[in-house]
């Protein structure tokens, strides 16, 4: 097993290097440069050249890449031009905020989605099924940023139940309750579409299982319906539901960008959008590399986990 893990880790190195090259090239190729973005109206060629030299952007591209890579390998991701702050500090703080938001949304959509799917399947064509199917369709059809704005208007502006934006109160304690207060609206808005998708797929997975012989046997044995549905059927259906959850986890993470903008959540998606608009090269590169590295590591962890459970997967 140790050898397998090592092999997977080694195979990740070219992937990560490839990512750094691609990210670096994309930022170098898109038109506009940080100096022009910083100087705005005052971007005379002379001023731009001077500022680029101050920022170290006048060196050849290949040299810039290796300087950046070398620094990064020693843990120095550089300083953001636009925020004047170490890239790594900013990225880690922002990534943490995104994980809180996306993690909460993922828990919400998994629980609600599976529950709705199960209830729906257990009452196929019944009133509950129809109500859930309708709601789910509605949820899937509303773009999350629009839903977010509507939620702000209703729950924050009209009812004043929750704060409009941000992650922490400006004044007062920064505890779990304060965080939840700020988290409920964005996490719900982010969870809605994924909940719908999970509910639909859970419903069909359950329906499939409910038609199988062991369910009939269980019922014949006199197991109560509640037990049949939640213990026997759901357990079998989870086999096809779990991969759906996996895909939705990625979807929730990437969908967080819109929600972060609407709710001004200080997450990494919003950070990257701002950084790209300001041509804050080092921040974009650092952010993408960190996210990509986490993604690669997550995949390796999943593969290793699966290999531990089922040695046949190890190839």
């Amino acid at each position, binding site marked *: 097993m140790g050898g397998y893990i090592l092999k997977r880790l080694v195979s990740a190195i070219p992937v990560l290097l490839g990512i750094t090259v691609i990210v670096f090239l994309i930022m170098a190729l*898109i*038109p*506009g*440069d940080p*100096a*022009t973005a*910083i*100087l*705005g*109206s*005052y*971007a*005379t*060629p*002379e*001023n731009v050249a001077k500022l680029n030299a*101050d*920022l170290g952007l006048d060196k050849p591209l290949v040299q810039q890449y290796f300087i950046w890579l070398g620094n990064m390998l020693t843990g120095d991701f550089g300083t953001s031009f636009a*925020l*004047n*702050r170490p890239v790594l500090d*900013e990225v880690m*703080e*922002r990534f943490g905020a995104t994980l809180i938001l996306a993690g909460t949304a993922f828990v919400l959509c998994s629980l609600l989605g599976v529950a709705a799917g199960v*209830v729906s399947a*257990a*009452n196929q064509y*019944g009133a*509950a099924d129809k109500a859930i199917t309708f709601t789910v369709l509605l949820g899937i059809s509303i773009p999350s940023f629009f839903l977010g*704005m509507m939620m*702000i*208007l209703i729950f924050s*502006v009209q009812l*004043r*139940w929750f*704060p*409009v*934006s*941000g*992650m*922490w*109160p*400006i*004044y007062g304690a920064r505890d779990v*309750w304060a965080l*939840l*207060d700020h988290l*409920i609206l964005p996490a719900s808005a982010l969870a809605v579409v994924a909940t719908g998708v999970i509910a639909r797929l859970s419903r069909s997975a359950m329906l499939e299982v409910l038609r199988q012989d062991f369910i009939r046997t269980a019922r014949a044995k006199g197991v*109560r*319906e*509640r037990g049949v*549905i939640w213990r026997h059927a759901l357990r079998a259906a989870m086999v096809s539901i779990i991969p759906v959850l996996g895909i939705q986890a990625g979807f929730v993470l990437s969908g967080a960008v819109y929600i972060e903008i*609407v*709710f*001004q959540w*200080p997450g990494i998606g*919003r950070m990257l959008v*701002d950084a790209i*608009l300001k*041509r804050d090269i080092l921040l974009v590169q650092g952010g993408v590399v960190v996210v990509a590295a986490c993604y690669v590591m997550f995949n390796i962890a999943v593969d290793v986990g699966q290999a531990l459970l089922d040695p046949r997967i190890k190839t």
Partner: protein
Amino acid sequence: MSLLSLSRRGLLAAGTALGLGLLALSPPPATAQTPPGVLIVGQIAEPKALDPAAVTAVNDFRILMNVYDGLVRYKDGTLEVEPALATSWEISEDGTEYTFTLREGVTFHDGSAFDAEAVKFNFDRMLDESHPYHDTGPFPLAFFFSAVQEVEVVDPLTVKFTLDAPYAPFLSNLAYPTGLIVSPAAVAEHGAEFGRNPSGTGAFTFAEWRANEAVVIEANPDYWDGAPELQAVVFRPITDANTRTAEMLAGGIDLMVEVPPVALSQFQDAPYTVHEQAGPHVWFLILNAKEGPFADVRVRQAANYAINKSAIVNDVLEGTAEVAAGPTPPAFAWAYNEALEPYPYDPDKARALIAEAGAEGAELTFYVTEGGSGMLDPVAMGTAMQADLEAVGFDVSIETYEWNTFLGNVNPGLEGKADMAQMAWMTNDPDTLPYLALRTEAWPDQGGFNSGYYSNPEVDALLEQARVATDQDERARLYKEMQEIVQEDAPWVFVANWKQNAVTSDRVEGFSLQPSFFLLLDDVVKN
């Protein structure tokens, strides 16, 4: 079915739990309210740094102007300079030596004294590459003071600037945020981190910067110009305009800047007050005077007649701007030519001029940007202009670019690429824009912004003379004459002067916007 009963029971239980949770969570409405004496300002972005020499964005200036002072500042409600940290100054006959007498007894927030050495430190740090703290930059706007040859300490309260040539905008550049004075002791202590540990002489002292959340400044009780009424100001970065509007409506902020035109109607009634102030901003179309149809002055004038500027200002911009008459914004009251009337909307006259020039049906390429500093609502404005120009017989095709790409296309000049391009400038002196964008020597190949290749020796001469004249009346006369000629030559379509806006809640008193677009909070009261 037992499942239904279960789910109903379950739902009830879950609902109750959720309800209880919400009760526990939802704070009393009071927490949405901000403490008395603390003003919460909705900003448009996270500041880059609080070091005036290192930043370029109006957004950052809004904080800086309250933490620092310059040697001079703009008189309330004008763009004319008055004493601040300097109590008086003398300008030598030839206009190259400025001697300032400094205010006595002023200290920086960190306790160190403000004196002539501190002034010298500030300018040497920006301009002298061998200065020990030059590496705390970069200082992108240092060229505002590139005329400064030497800063000399005459005595602790007297400082002399020597310029390499007479340069009339020097005083108003000193009033600009780049000229604000920082504490040398704090720069020495924090080095490159000074931008996050600022120390000035201003009405407010820096208290705290929580990344992506808030910058907090507190009243300076010892302020030389009288301690501010507010206890503290919190600047919150809220980049999305809709969210900023919602925060204002929900009471999460007391003052909001840059209200989107479509949201203004939300704030027309109590408890809100909408503030408006025209500033030193001009929105125009650069016309390519070197080649194509706009090489003919009649066609350039025709474009000015053809575009319905009042419709754009009133309908597209919802009244958040005024129709521009010429290249100089009226906010520069002393230098603005009141006699100038905007080109009227007259499509018939436009058609006649086009026919005279034989440019009927000319094909025009029009560069439009998606948005950018001071560009207002460029796509909608561009579309309206396209329709107006097509109505008088042009065939206009729009090319739209993201802001940085747009600048990369426009600043090197329009030759061979386009006939017209959108542009907007905000400046602090009537010299800046025409000097950088209308002179013959400001063509892009010479490092200027004259991307449409306008050239008129008369205008060149007037601008050079105005720059070296130190008498304000003389400068005003020269600028007024320049505006008349430029309006007639029509190198641009003069479109709009933006009125900056802000909304305050009924708890805020004593607030007014400045034509400089700075946000000054030392006289604001919050109840």
